[in-house]
C-alpha cells in the first residue's frame, strides 16, 4: 500500500512537470493552430539558461525567471521573424518549426556540449525529507513541483479568464477573422502569445533541470510528452492539458513500477484509445 501511494505521488509530480511543459504548447496551438515543434527546444534552452543563471547568481527563483524569459524572447523572435511570415499556412509553419528545433538543438549541443546538467538548488530543496504517515524519504523538489504547477495553472487560468489579454486570446481561439475585423493587431497578439508559451516552456525546462536533469535529447522527450498530453487532453485547452498530464504522468509511473519493460506501452495505449473514441481529445472541442 505504501508503495502504491508513493508511486501515485510520483505520478502526480511527473504530471505537474508534463503540465508545465504542455500548457505553453497547447496555448499556442489553441490561438494560432500552429503545432510548434520547436517547443521542446525552447524548453531545453530555458533549462540551460536557468543553469547558467543559477551558477552565476546562486539564486534558484532567479534561474527559473531567467530561463523563462530567455525562452520567451526566443519564442517571440521565432514568431515575429519566421513563423509569422507564414501565418495561415499551418503546414508550412509546422515544417519550419521542425527545422528550427533541429537547428536550435545543434546550436545548444555546440555551446553546452553533450554532458548532463542539473540546476543547483538551495539546500532546503536539494535534499529529501521523511513523509509523515508513509515513513519513507521523498525529494522536497518534487513536492515543490506540484505546488509550482498548481500556481502556474491558476495564474494561467486567471490570465485567460479574467484579463483583457485573456479575452482577446479566447476571442482569437473562437474566430480569428472577426478579431482582426474588430481592429486588433493579430500579428502582435500572436507574438505575445508565443512569448507566453515560450515563458512557460522555459520555466518548465528549469524546473525539469532541477528535479531531474537536462541533456541533448531532453527537448525531444518533452516535445513528445507534450504532444501526447495535448492529444489526450484536447488541443488548445489548458484544462485538457492538466487532465492529459495527469493521465500520462500516472500511467508512466504505474508502468515503470509494475511493468518496467512495457511501461511506455500504457502511455501510448491511452493515446490510441482517446484517438479512437474521442479524436478531438478528452476536453477538446471538435472542429466545426
Amino acid at each position: 500500500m505504501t508503495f502504491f501511494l508513493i508511486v501515485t505521488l510520483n505520478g502526480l509530480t511527473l504530471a505537474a512537470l508534463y503540465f508545465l511543459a504542455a500548457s505553453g504548447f497547447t496555448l499556442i496551438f489553441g490561438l494560432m493552430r500552429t503545432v510548434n515543434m520547436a517547443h521542446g527546444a525552447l524548453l531545453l534552452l530555458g533549462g540551460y539558461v536557468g543553469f547558467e543563471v543559477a551558477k552565476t547568481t546562486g539564486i534558484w527563483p532567479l534561474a527559473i525567471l531567467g530561463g523563462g524569459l530567455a525562452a520567451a524572447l526566443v519564442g517571440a523572435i521565432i514568431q515575429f521573424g519566421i513563423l509569422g511570415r507564414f501565418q495561415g499556412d499551418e503546414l508550412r509553419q509546422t515544417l519550419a518549426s521542425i527545422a528550427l528545433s533541429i537547428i536550435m538543438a545543434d546550436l545548444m549541443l555546440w555551446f553546452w556540449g553533450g554532458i548532463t546538467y542539473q540546476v543547483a538548488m538551495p539546500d532546503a530543496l536539494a535534499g529529501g525529507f521523511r513523509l509523515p504517515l508513509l515513513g519513507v524519504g521523498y525529494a522536497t523538489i518534487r513536492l515543490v513541483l506540484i505546488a509550482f504547477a498548481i500556481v502556474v495553472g491558476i495564474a494561467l487560468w486567471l490570465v485567460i479568464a479574467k484579463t483583457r489579454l485573456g479575452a482577446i486570446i479566447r476571442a482569437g481561439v473562437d474566430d480569428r477573422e472577426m478579431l482582426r475585423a474588430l481592429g486588433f493587431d493579430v500579428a502582435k497578439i500572436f507574438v505575445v502569445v508565443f512569448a507566453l508559451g515560450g515563458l512557460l516552456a522555459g520555466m518548465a525546462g528549469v524546473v525539469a533541470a532541477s528535479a531531474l536533469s537536462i541533456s541533448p535529447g531532453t527537448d525531444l522527450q518533452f516535445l513528445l510528452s507534450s504532444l501526447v498530453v495535448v492529444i489526450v487532453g484536447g488541443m488548445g485547452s489548458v484544462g485538457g492539458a492538466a487532465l492529459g498530464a495527469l493521465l500520462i504522468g500516472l500511467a508512466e509511473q504505474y508502468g515503470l513500477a509494475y511493468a518496467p519493460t512495457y511501461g511506455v506501452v500504457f502511455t501510448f495505449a491511452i493515446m490510441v484509445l482517446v484517438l479512437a473514441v474521442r479524436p478531438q481529445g478528452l476536453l477538446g472541442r471538435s472542429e466545426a
Partner: protein
Amino acid sequence: MFTNLRAITMTSILALGVFTAPASAEDIKIGVISILEGAFAALGQDGIRGAELAVAEAGGEVAGNKIEVITMSSDASPDSAVNAARKLIEQDGVDIIVGPLSGSEGLALRDLSKSYPAVTFLNGSSAAQDTTLRDSSDNFFRFGGDGAQWMAGVGNYAHDDLGYQKVAVVAEDYSFPYTQVLGFMTEFCAAGGSVPDKFWTPIGTKDYSSVVYSIPSDVDAIFVALGGADAVNFLTQYNQAGGDKPIIGGSITIDQSILDSEGPFKKQLIGAPAGTPTVSDLDGTEWKAFTASYTEHFPDGFTAPSIFAHHYYMSAHAAVLALEEVKGDLSGDQAAFRAALSDLQFVTPTGGTMRLDENRNGIVDNFVTEVFEREDGTLGNRVVKIISDVDQSLGQDPSAFLAQGPVSRDNPSCP
C-alpha cells in the same frame, strides 16, 4: 532526334562506366561509424578521434598506399548503423569499416558483414556479448572485450573484499547492459552472492522514482549499469529519496563526466567499485604516451582519451598493423589481410598484449576501480585491481560457458 537521344544515352552509359570504375588500387579506404548526434555525440566524436589518431600515427599511409578515412554517423539504433555501413560500402567503396559504438548496433553490423564478404569489419566500442560469441562472422573482428569482460573482477571484489551478499541490479534494457550484468553476476553468484531483483529501464528514462522505491530494503548494495544522463538521474533521485545503499558501477556508469557533474549524490559514490578496460588517469608508460599523442593531435579533445577513443584506436591500429604486414595487399577478398589480423599481437595503450581468440574477439586486461576523493575535493577513479588475460568465457570452459545460453533479461539468474 532519335539518334541524338541514343548518343546521349551512350554518353551517359560511358560516363557511368567511368564513375563506377574501381578506385585506384593504391588508396585504402577506411569507413568509421560512430554516433555523432544526440546524447552520445560528444563521446562518439571521441571514438572518431581514436580511429584518426591510429591513422595519423602511421603517417596516413601504409607501404606507400594512402589511407583515406571517411566518417559516418549513426544514432545508436541498429538500422542507422546498417544504413551508415551500406552507404560507406556501396557509395564510398570502403575496404574496411571501423565501428560502431553501441551494443545493439554491433549485433546489426555483425549480421550485415555476412552479406559483404569483401569488406572487413573491425568493431568500434560496441560490447554486446553475442556479437562475436554466438553466430560470429568471419569478417567481423573485435580488438577489445565485451561488456562481460569489462566487468571481470568486480563480482569477486564486491563479494570477497567488500563483503556484499545481496545486490539489486538497475540497468538499461538493451544488449550491452545485459552483458555487463552477466559479467558481474557470473563472478558474484559463483562466489556465493545473490541478486534478488533486477530492474530493466528504457534508455533515456528521466524519472526513476518508482524504481527507487521498488528496490528491496535488505540488499547490501545496488549494481547500477546506466550511462550518462540516466546514471545522473537515477543517482540523484535515489539520494533525494534518502537511499543510502552503496553503489557498484558498470563500465560507463561512473566515468569522469559523472564524477565532474554537480550534485549531492556524488558523496555517495566515494568508494564505489566499477569495472572498466579504460582508466583515464592510468599510471603506465604506454598510457601516458597514448594520452600525450592524443592531446597533441587533438588539442580540443578531452583531457584524456575516453573508453571510446581507446577502443576505436585499438581497432584502427590493428588494421594499420595488419595492412603493414601484408604491404597493403587487399586482393582475394582480403584473405591475407584477415589472416594477418587473426594472428596479430600488439601492446595496447593500457600496457597489455592484445590478441584474438578463435571467434575474433579480444583477450584483454581489465581494471577494477574505485571512486576516491582527491585532495582538492574533486572525485576520480583509481585502480584497485588488474585482471589480466580475460577471455570471452571469463576463464570458464568455453563449451560450458556457451551452454548457459544467450544473455537476456532473465539469464543469468541467482535470486
